[in-house]
């Protein structure tokens, strides 16, 4: 405790003139009410050192009465107002036998990391009331428990306070998660989005090299994407095939070309390899005897 380390001597141990001098200086320096309690928006974890002084110590007017020892009895802390969201009712849809998952702050941060970078950070130190058990079959949500008021006596030491926070991990209800995910971010914190790109034109794997190529010579590819082109048409990544395939590339005669123009899957004209599993070869492998 810082106060114990610094104030080894009580005020009554000091000589009276010196004490009076100090009190007079303090009265001049500090405006009236300057020793009041901190604003209500102060941190929730208040140590005993930061507690306001006793009102008796502020009275510096008139003849100086003998100083009494200051008792270190901290006043009760202001109540922490916690808004309790309504409990959520989860209806199982796919895996009814699956145990109810307890959603903690870590899970929320992990799942909503990408979507809610600007969302208010869940303060692990904040003492959130323990969420009620999520019941899958409860049609009506139970009444929310009353927020727990944290007495100042629980903060006798930093270790005790830490234990009190570690005891139960803060639980965030699913409604809060959805709220965080769909929360409208304050435009002040939003990066200016670049202007939307113009509508993308239908992709063609490779633009036609020459516009003079008749359209009916190009093999229609439909809405083939670039990855689809390289996996279906040019899966060898052949540099000679990095253009829109044409029927004339396959060396077809005019008669076949005329037929292929009506049927895009009709690709013939190349010499056919000999049949490997022909009748003679299969029968020669059979050991009848």
């Amino acid at each position, binding site marked *: 405790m810082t106060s114990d380390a610094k104030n080894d001597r009580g005020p009554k141990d000091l000589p009276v003139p010196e004490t009076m001098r100090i009190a007079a200086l303090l009265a001049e320096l500090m405006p009236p009410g300057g020793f009041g309690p901190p604003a209500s928006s102060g941190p929730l974890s208040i140590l005993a050192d930061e507690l306001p002084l006793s009102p008796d110590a502020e009275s510096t007017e008139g003849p100086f009465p003998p100083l009494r020892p200051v008792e270190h009895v901290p006043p009760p802390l202001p109540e922490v107002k916690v808004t309790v969201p309504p409990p959520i009712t989860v209806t199982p849809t796919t895996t009814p036998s699956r145990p109810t998952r307890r959603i903690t702050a870590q899970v929320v941060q992990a799942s909503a990391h990408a979507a809610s970078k600007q969302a208010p950070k869940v303060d692990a130190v904040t003492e959130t009331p323990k969420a009620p058990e999520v019941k899958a079959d409860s049609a009506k949500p139970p009444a929310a428990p009353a927020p727990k008021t944290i007495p100042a006596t629980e903060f006798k030491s930093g270790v005790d306070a830490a234990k009190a926070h570690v005891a139960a991990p803060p639980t965030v209800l699913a409604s809060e998660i959805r709220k965080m995910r769909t929360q409208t971010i304050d435009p002040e914190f939003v990066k200016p989005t670049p202007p939307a790109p113009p509508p993308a034109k239908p992709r063609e794997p490779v633009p036609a090299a020459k516009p003079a190529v008749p359209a009916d010579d190009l093999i229609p590819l439909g809405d083939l994407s670039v990855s689809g082109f390289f996996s279906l048409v040019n899966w060898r990544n052949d540099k000679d095939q990095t253009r829109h395939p044409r029927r004339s590339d396959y060396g077809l005669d005019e008669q076949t070309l005329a037929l292929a123009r009506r049927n895009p899957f009709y690709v013939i*004209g190349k010499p056919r390899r000999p049949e490997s599993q*022909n*009748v003679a070869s299969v029968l020669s492998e059979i*050991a009848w005897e």
Partner: protein
Amino acid sequence: MPLELTRTVEEAREHLSSHLRNETVDDARIREHVRIVAGPQPYDHCHFAADQFFQFDATSGAASNIHGQRLLRVTDNFLRSLSRALNDELGERAPETLYRIGRRWGDADVKAFVPRIEQEYGCAFDKLGMGAMLESWWWPLRASGWGVWRYDFSHSRNGLVLVELRDSAAAQAAGKTGKPACHLYAGLFAAVFGFLARRELVCAELECVAKGDSQCRFLVATQRRIEVAVSHRDAGATTDEIVRKISSLSQS
């Protein structure tokens, strides 16, 4: 119109030329590989619709398929009555008689099939793909209601060819008799594979729907292997066990 077993090879080829040939494209040559022709094809290969594959001559009251083979439309009762009549007349020799009928049928069928398929694809019979050739042979039978087959050459190094048959007309007609009923099929397979192997082969039915199996399975092999297989089958061994034992005997 002659009966199927009295048809000659020349008659089958004439029918093919008059019904399926495109004279402007076909050059009447037999090559070492299937010729790729652009545009109209020398022969029509695609005739899978029933009204294309079967014809009925009302004047003669005869039905035939697109290859000119004479057909006889019968019901299950006819096949069942044929089997029972043979059993009544011949007793224990009835299965063997059915096997011989199937064998004669297969001999005649494959002898007509070889020149037809060579002419249709313009390729020597030995150079045709084994799969295309066998499916071309079985397709008219499948279209006529003899079932769906699947051949298995995976044990050919041990001299065994397996054939699986589903929707057997003979087994369906016989019902659940507890005995193999597809002797006609066995003779058919023995004739065809014996013709291909140019040797005497025998076929035995190891599993049959009439026995309660899920499908009919046949084993085509030499006489010695088939005798071993039949003895194991009668002892209650499964097809896989029989194949395994014969394979071990062949390797030893």
